[in-house]
């Protein structure tokens, strides 16, 4: 049950798109464009009818698994339900059909929405100012580190080029530091999975620009010493960066601003319910404390003093510049806006309460069966290792993940964080029911038993999918990265 490529469908001469006749006097092509600039050979686009296009992509969709298909406890990704009114909102012509260069007076609704949500995000995180320009979390990290670097440079502290990250951090943190031309220093986590304060203190020095932390961290644990950490970082003259990937745990309960963070990026596609889209688009707004506001990317949405109308401020001499064209992923921002307006402050708090409750409840159902490397109260997610006896049976986390597919669940995140052997990282989110959590726990417990009784069952899993395990080595060694017409080498 696989689907042929669209290029292998259709027939020469077939098409689905009747474009209108040209209603202006037609001039010969050659009079408009020098013939040397014209294409000699048309691109090999498919020749298919609309019916074939609709069928093809519908069948492709059926080979996919989304949040609406079933439980998707992918740790660190916050695969919560994506409310449908958000999809309605973004398709309103007054949002979808706006050109980014329309004069401000034509787009007051859009600018106002951006201004308002910047304020909401500041309130939720305890920061002072936000930019909506970064298109994703990693893009937000890039923006945040550039801001930090510009800040140090503005104070003449041009030697601050080191970024400290814990060994449990997201891969984007060190990659971002490198992209910003900074040096990465990784520190080991303490025995309880938290930042080792002493190790951090000894790594901090006059060359440290920033410390990047996720809180709750990637093990789903709250950094209990966060206040002391922030003090140590600031005493060393460095700034504290918050990877806001795990904000879903603490809305209305604790704010990075109070924890002592100076900069944060949020993932609207995680915490604020915008869909992941199969890998994007997301949005990674960045929030900063007052003293960093001058360095935000331009343009900044602001309000005029006189008539209170909204405008885009490009006159930002200390700005790090632009990180993306126009103003970011506006369509994603509209969805997040609808979500925040639907829930209000109390609703967001209930989101976090239930996210944390669901995680702890699920953990309680499997902790007898699976190894729990850091067994304490978790926040919105937790990390497991395979049950006893699995290693001896030659079974890995990947086998558990693939077997879960047979039970109609999307597997948790696997092999992350890197500091846990054979990690399975589970994040149920607040939008799942108790029955769903219990069903998933049952499946995990059953798989634990199956693994010991019949290891091959797991090693060969999944069994009921359109394709079985795919040869990733072959894909990387002999890359086939595109379709080519028959006969082309």
């Amino acid at each position, binding site marked *: 049950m696989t689907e042929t490529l669209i290029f292998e469908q259709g027939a020469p001469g077939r098409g689905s*798109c009747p*474009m209108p006749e*040209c209603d*202006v006097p037609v001039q010969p092509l050659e009079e408009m*464009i*020098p013939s040397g600039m*014209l*294409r*000699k050979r048309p691109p090999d686009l*498919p020749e298919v009818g609309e019916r074939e*296009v*609709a069928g093809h992509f519908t069948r492709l969709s059926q*080979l996919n698994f989304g949040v609406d298909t079933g439980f*998707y406890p992918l740790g660190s*990704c916050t*695969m919560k339900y994506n409310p449908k009114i958000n999809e309605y909102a*973004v398709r309103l012509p*007054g*949002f979808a059909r706006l*050109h980014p260069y*329309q004069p401000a007076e*034509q787009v007051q*609704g859009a600018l106002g929405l951006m201004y308002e949500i910047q304020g909401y995000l500041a309130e939720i995180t305890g920061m002072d100012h936000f930019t909506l320009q970064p298109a994703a979390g*990693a*893009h937000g*990290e890039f923006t945040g580190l550039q801001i930090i*670097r510009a800040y140090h440079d503005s104070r003449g502290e041009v030697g601050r080029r080191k970024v400290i990250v814990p060994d449990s951090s997201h*891969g984007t943190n060190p990659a971002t530091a*490198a992209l910003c*031309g900074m040096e990465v220093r990784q520190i080991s986590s303490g025995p309880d999975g938290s930042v080792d304060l002493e190790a951090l203190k000894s790594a901090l020095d006059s060359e440290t620009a920033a410390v990047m932390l996720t809180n709750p961290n990637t093990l789903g644990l709250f950094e*209990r010493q966060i206040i002391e950490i922030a003090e140590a970082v600031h005493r060393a003259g460095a700034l504290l960066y918050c990877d806001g990937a795990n904000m879903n745990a603490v809305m209305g*309960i604790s*704010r990075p601003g*109070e924890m002592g963070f100076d900069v944060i990026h949020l993932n609207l596609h995680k915490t604020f319910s915008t*869909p992941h*889209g*199969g*890998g*994007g688009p997301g949005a990674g707004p960045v929030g900063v404390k007052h003293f960093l506001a001058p360095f935000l990317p331009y343009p900044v949405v602001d309000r005029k003093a006189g008539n209170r109308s909204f405008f885009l401020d490009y006159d930002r001499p200390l700005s790090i510049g*632009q*990180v*993306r*064209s*126009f103003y*970011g992923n506006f*369509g994603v921002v509209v969805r997040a806006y609808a979500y925040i*307006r639907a829930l209000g*402050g*109390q609703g*967001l708090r209930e*989101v976090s309460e239930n996210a*944390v409750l669901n995680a702890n409840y699920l953990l309680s159902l499997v902790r007898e069966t699976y190894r729990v490397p850091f067994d304490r109260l978790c926040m919105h997610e937790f990390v497991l290792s395979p049950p006893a006896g699995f290693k001896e049976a030659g079974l890995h986390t990947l086998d558990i993940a693939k077997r879960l597919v047979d039970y109609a669940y999307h597997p948790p995140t696997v092999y992350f964080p890197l500091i846990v052997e054979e990690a399975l990282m589970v994040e149920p989110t*607040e939008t799942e029911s108790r029955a769903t959590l219990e069903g998933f726990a049952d499946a995990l417990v059953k798989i634990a038993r199956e693994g010991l009784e019949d290891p091959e069952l797991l090693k060969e899993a999944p069994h009921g*999918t359109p394709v*079985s395990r*795919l040869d990733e080595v072959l894909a*990387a060694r002999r*890359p*086939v*990265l595109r379709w080519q017409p028959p006969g082309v080498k």
Partner: protein
Amino acid sequence: MRYVLNTVEDQKLMLGRVGLSGMEDLFRDIPPGARLHTPLDLPRPLAEPELHRHLREVAGKNLNLDEYACFLGAGAYDHYVSPIVDQLLLRSEFYTAYTPYQPEISQGTLQAIFEYQSLICTLTGMEVANASLYDGASALAEAALMACEETKRSKVVVSESVHPEYRAVVRTYLRHRGIEIAECPCTCGLTDPETLAGLVDSRTAAVLIQQPNFFGCLEPVLDLGEASHRHGALFVVCVDPVSLGLLEAPGEYGADIVVGEGQGLGNQVSFGGPYLGFLACRQKLVRRMPGRLVGQTLDKSGRRGFVLTIQAREQHIRREKATSNICSNEALCALAATIHLCWLGKDGLRRVAELCLQKSHYAHSQLASLKGVKPSFKAPFFKEFAMQLEEDIEEVNGRLIKGRIIGGLDLGRFYRSYSGHMLLCCTEMRTREEIDRLAAGIGGMSI
């Protein structure tokens, strides 16, 4: 509780199982100094019918392109998007899925991206394309970084005729990497190959140009490519994918890396985003590429399937040694582009490109015949062109909007020397009637 399924009863039972007496206990790891002691100060929650009305009201404060004829382009284009695109995007198996890290249950996304990569390759005439980047601007910046890594050189030359916002993003990306950026000035709306050649030397990693360029003009790409290659610099071309229905594929004139903004392929203008940046290159550069790649492979029974591949370039494996920090792509926008291109097909894309060409040339000739209006440049163009107006552009646009026409962009916004020049765009969406009214309005008549 909206979007939460736990009832009060569920919560009690679950808390009991965990051994806690209340929700508050869940957060006991958070030190008091880091606790928020007041409720979040946000507007009250809106019931769904209220929210529905509110959203319509906010949207209603904007003048939208369904009701106004738009002659703005400059990197965001009002091309036709068929309802088939949006209806397929709304298949929630597509839009509610995550990155396809579990290929057995993600073949839909993976195959669609494979098809997308194939389409970008055939459009651009390149050998490989990635799964997409944030937008055209960041794709251009990533291409510049890629070229510096490949050549081990630390200078890029960028033409002044490249979109000013793209150049700004390139500057931000390259700022702290010890890379020098030289801007090549333009004459008559074009990059002069001799001037360019004067800036390219043996330290130059890449030359960045745009075709058609920001002014709409068609650059002498063959000569520019030659000037780049003379000293071994890579030739990076930023293209409008719609133009490639008619214009020569950059692979045919020596481009080493081709990037561009894919919005015009099936994605709404959406006030600037989400969009998608495409990046395609020669096979030999594949391991330097940023972002995701989907490749074809076989499953255990020998069936064809697709996986994310050559991941040893990426941040989740390589951390600080990755080719980029990018972790996502713009998968849903790339899916829109794929559906759109399949639906348009071979003839359709050419037809769209021809309509853009014909209509913009008609508009050009109508405007050029007006008193007080003269073409800014003489170079051939595709769907955008600039006109110098005697009258103040803001005033002209103010008159046009009364006739439900959104006029062009004042080039003075980005180029002081072109203050008073208006950049206009005609896609296949513009009708003769709209163009005639545009001309009447610019000519001083109330419309």
